[in-house]
């Protein structure tokens, strides 16, 4: 499939908050409660359309466990967007957000767009973090915020797409030098089908056609 842009996303947050479930819901539109826990990193991809342009999201779903962090940090490099996820039913996952954010600020590029997601909002009866707290945290740290549920699919699509829209806007505004892949953006062949369309490594050559 050809694309105008390819964005690299990472999903981060404590173990068990539902990162893999969110990814699966977004890419496969299903909820699989018995998904294996993540070791290292897993990948997903999906095409979306923004401003009539096909955009490919390449999503890295990282392992949340604390002791894996020294390794997962290396995956931040070159991500254009990040979904920072906590579990609204587990307070500690919210308390750890600051340290995740610090990691992201340190190891990702400064222009990375970060979306804060309070997941499992279908479990409202077990809620341990209020929506207002989430909003407040996001505001303080300059993040976009949404509550979502990987189980019901509520806001899942929106979370991924509005992140992409924000990145896209930054490109339009000239925030990124899209020819520099360290921003996590690759320029594709925008609508020109072909076997090498959007192939990694060849994409950046075609910068002129899209910007």
């Amino acid at each position, binding site marked *: 499939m050809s694309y105008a842009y390819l964005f*690299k996303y990472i999903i981060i947050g404590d*173990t*068990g908050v539902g990162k893999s479930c969110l990814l699966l819901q977004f890419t496969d539109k299903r909820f699989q*409660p*018995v*998904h*294996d*826990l993540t*070791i*290292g*990193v*897993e*990948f997903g991809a999906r095409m979306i359309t923004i401003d009539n342009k096909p955009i490919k999201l390449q999503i890295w779903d990282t*392992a949340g*466990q*604390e*002791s*894996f962090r*020294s*390794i997962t940090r*290396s*995956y931040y*490099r*070159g991500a254009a967007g990040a979904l920072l996820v906590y579990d609204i039913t587990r307070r*500690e996952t919210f308390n750890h957000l600051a340290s995740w954010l610090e990691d992201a600020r340190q190891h990702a590029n400064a222009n990375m767009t970060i979306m804060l997601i309070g997941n499992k909002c279908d479990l409202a009866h077990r809620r341990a973090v209020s929506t207002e707290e989430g909003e407040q945290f996001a505001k303080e740290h300059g993040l976009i915020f949404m509550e979502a549920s990987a189980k019901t699919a509520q806001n899942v699509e929106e979370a991924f797409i509005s992140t992409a829209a924000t990145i896209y806007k930054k490109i339009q505004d000239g925030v990124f030098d899209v020819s520099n892949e360290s921003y996590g953006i690759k320029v594709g062949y925008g609508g020109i089908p072909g076997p090498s369309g959007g192939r*990694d*490594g060849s994409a950046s050559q075609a910068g002129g056609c899209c910007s």
Partner: protein
Amino acid sequence: MQEPELHDLSDDSDYAASQQQRELRIMSRTDSGKRSGDNDPDGAEVVFVKDNVTIHPTQYASERISGRLRLIKHGALLFMELRIMSRTDSGKRSGDNDPDGAEVVFVKDNVTIHPTQYASERISGRLRLIKHGALLFMTWIPYKEKIDSTTHCSSSNTKLSEIDRNLYTIRAVPVTDIRSIRRHTPTFGWQYLIIVLSSGLAFPPLYFYNGGVREFLATIKQHVFLVRSVGDSNVFLVNDFQDPLQRSLSSLELPRAVSISNTSTPTLASSAPQIENSERIDDGSSSISQYGGRHGPKIHDPARDLSIQVLEKFSLVTKFARETTTHLLREIQNDGFLANDTKKQSQPPSNDNHETGLNDAQSVPNEISVTPDPLEKPLNEVLWLGCSNNLELRACSFDGKVIDQWYELSVYIRLYYLDGRVLNEFWKETHFEEAATRVGTFELVNSKEFDKLTLVWGQPRQPPLGSEEWATFFDAEGRIMDSKSLRKRIFYGGVEHQIRNEVWKFLLGYHEYDSTYAEREYLASVKKTDYETLKSQWQSISPAQARRFTKFRERKGLIEKDVVRTDRSASFYDGDDNPNVTLLLNILLTYSFYNFDLGYCQGMSDLLSPILFVMKDESESFWCFVSLMERLGPNFNRDQNGMHSQLFALSKLVELLDSPLHNYFRQNDCLNYFFCFRWVLIQFKREFDFEKMMRLWEVLWTHYLSEHFHLYVCVAILKKHRSKIIGEQMDFDTLLKFINELSGHIDLDVTIRDAEALCICAGENGAACIPPGTPASLPIETDLLYPLQDDNEI
């Protein structure tokens, strides 16, 4: 006759000092030379003796007859005699170290090779010329780590592994075997020499960091016939004679060749003042290039010069060629081609089949039909090899990329025993490709032949061990008599599933091999009680206590969250409220009390799940898991030090076993090997289907070839995909994704065979890549097995 030659080489002060020493030597040689005149007829006088004068009866450089050429003056007549050497005579040539009675006539420190195109990567060593009898040998021995005295080399040497040092060591090459020496004098940097042997071998360029090129050439000139090539004044040809008569005639012009050792000089050269870098800026223009023209027989032969140039190119690919040879060596071992029984070891080497025709039946290695256990073999060493001069160069394209050249060549292989005796030597066809030629670099990234070889190296896999055969390993009381052959058997075939629950207990160390049935039965009951006691520790925690025990609650919560996310698609664990999932929880939680410092960490449930599936029994699964964690525990340390040491060891192994890939990873910032993280942490659990994964695990647990066989498995898989990785120029992200997506697409049997071959090839050098204490070794006993870290997680 000599004077102009010497003058030609003596226009630097470095040389001037050595010339005085030389004159001393010449004087003493005149009388000691008589020692070589043994068995002379009455009244006869030997005026010239030269060993290792060689006839090539065919066009194959490997087929040769060597002998001693003598000129004997008898009255007014001069007789020429070529006597074929006996084995004992020629055997001396392979002797490493300085043989008794040897005289060191040239020593130069800080002669350095650059195995890669990076100037920072170098191996420094000592170059020596050693005279032994009438023969002059050249040796270049790399310094051992830390012995290096000069500051500018000691740090760089440590980056290169021990195997590099071994690979490049030049052990006692007779100077008469040298075909040509090319001197390079770059405008910037150090002078270096490329030495090509008559066999076609080219050594890597030798950089003279401390100068001494002229002195080196002059010393050689004192012992063999050395002339400049007419076509290129920087090429010196050794023993380049047009015909035997001229050879003998020319030799007469070199009376010093009849020299015999003078033991008073061995250290003179090394204590001579080292004129730092005095030759660096020598552009060679002062050389008298017409020198060679004064020798009648020298006719410019463009074909010869071209072939020398081509051969010299191979000095730059030596590393690859050696690597290839190492694999070929392995292949040959599999063919049972190498004889290794101890009887042979105590006998003279049988290397000279072609050379002397004097071999006895013992020396035909094909007679040995049984391949001995690789572990019991004496370590064979490939000391040097060369490339045949019949080679083809053509442009070709590969994976859409234009490859500059493709070489087809033969590799000359000589296999040595550790003590220096030659086991065998032969030519082997091989192919490889050159992918990038830059000034001074010659990088090889792919070899089709080489990759093909990986398919046939390792031993064919055997059918899994069945229950009947399993029974034969026990004595009457139930001891396993020969645990090594059991482990070997399992290494090559695995075990049938129905006996896994018995076999794994031994492999994991829950049962001792030399325990009896009765002992094991007793142990099982004791262990069962022990387990219940451990389990009751957390089971007895009341809700009220738990409320005040955050660490416990968190730990339990985490395990609960993870056991429901472990292998739930396997029927053994699927469905709601599956009791086996509860067993996983019980065992992991009990383990986190048994080993409270380590606690629980993700990945453990992946390791436990197959064990419980095989054992079915809770207590036995627990103790088997405990045994496994004795080795793998450090992988789960909070600070990840176990994982980091493994990934570091892996990078060293790849450097050793696949340097093109290593170089690629280095250039692309992939040396942290994080893309292999999951492979190593959970022993490829997620890369294969359940049955295959269990097969691999039991192979790994035999620790048959290495405790760290899993690292060789990593290398094998990476190596298999090397051309794709490099061909597609994968960056870290792409590589990580690629490796992740290999899951389910790895051929287990092929991989094990490749890994086996790699492990054997790497031998001691491979083991040296792996720091002590790296999982899956048993931990080095310390007071604190698992350093605690302050954090608010579990």
